[in-house]
């Protein structure tokens, strides 16, 4: 008699459905949090080991006969990674300085310059390279993978990687003189 008076507990959302909903929500929040933190981060910071990436090279701009370069193959050398684009006017300010610096360091074989062409079209890029007589390896940033890895904020930006593959310096904006480039490279050669 007494037992029959107890009303059955009201059934809510099944436990498995609650778990799925919460896992989904937490996952969604985690994705938003990661996205926001990435957006607030600046460029890759000095001291970080640069992960391997592959840069396809425009024909005529190969290095050591290679049509694509893996950054890990360049361990033991100082690597100067310059992001540029043919539509970028500030890039033109430093193009001659970079090429002069490349000609200065190329014979030693201890320094490699890499030009990463950001969101550009190949015909225009070739016109730019020819105009400034650039001869160091250059190639497109396919699917913007490299620029996304470095979290660049614009062009030009230049990254100096030491012999151990560790990022040492970052130059945001154009170089104004060749001495500025030397000042970044020379300490890494010691």
């Amino acid at each position, binding site marked *: 008699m007494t037992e029959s008076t107890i*009303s059955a507990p009201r059934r809510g959302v099944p436990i498995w459905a609650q778990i799925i909903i919460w896992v989904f929500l937490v996952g969604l929040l985690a994705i938003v949090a990661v996205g926001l933190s990435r957006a607030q981060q600046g460029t890759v910071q000095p001291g970080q080991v640069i992960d391997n990436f592959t840069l396809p090279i425009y024909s005529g701009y190969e290095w050591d006969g290679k049509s694509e370069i893996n950054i890990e193959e360049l361990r033991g050398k100082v690597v100067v990674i310059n992001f540029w684009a043919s539509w970028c006017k500030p890039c033109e300010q430093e193009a001659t300085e970079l090429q002069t610096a490349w000609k200065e360091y190329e014979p030693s074989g201890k320094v490699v310059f890499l030009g990463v062409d950001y969101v550009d079209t190949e015909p225009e890029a070739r016109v730019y390279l020819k105009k400034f007589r650039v001869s160091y390896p250059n190639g497109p940033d396919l699917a913007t993978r490299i620029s996304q890895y470095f979290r660049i904020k614009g062009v030009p930006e230049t990254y100096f990687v030491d012999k151990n593959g560790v990022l040492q310096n970052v130059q945001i904006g154009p170089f104004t003189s060749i001495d500025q480039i030397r000042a970044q490279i020379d300490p890494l050669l010691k």
Partner: protein
Amino acid sequence: MRSSRITFYALLLALILAGLWTNSASTQGPTPTDDEVNRIAKQLYCPVCESTPLDVCPTEACRHWRDLIRTMLAESKSETEIKQYFVEQYGARVLAEPPNRLISYLVPTVAILLGAFMLLRGFQKWIKPSMMESNLENSKREAKPFQDVYIAKLEEELKKRK
């Protein structure tokens, strides 16, 4: 005899040149109009100028992109081929609409449905709190005699142990 041979070679040369010209003209195709270029351009976004479709973007980078579309159209490339090229070069984020992947549509749909379901549950609880409270009171009141029997039994057991 000699003049007829010269005429023959001249005709042959003219035919070859005409053939070459026709061939090059057919592969090049007519110059695409701005409308044709913009029809594809409005489906693309340049990563440099966020939130501005390529067909109306005034920057130098976007002008280069439109020129490239024009060149590719002149080479008789299809719309799909051109968009595919841009995705390979600059990533899927250049597309105005996400690629037709199941996940692109499934995740937002599931998220909206889940959100709607949770809102509905929340509103149900919010709108009828008094009704729920009275239900709870009733159930408590009804459950009391049942609980009392058990409590009495428990107390009796405890007394026996003492």
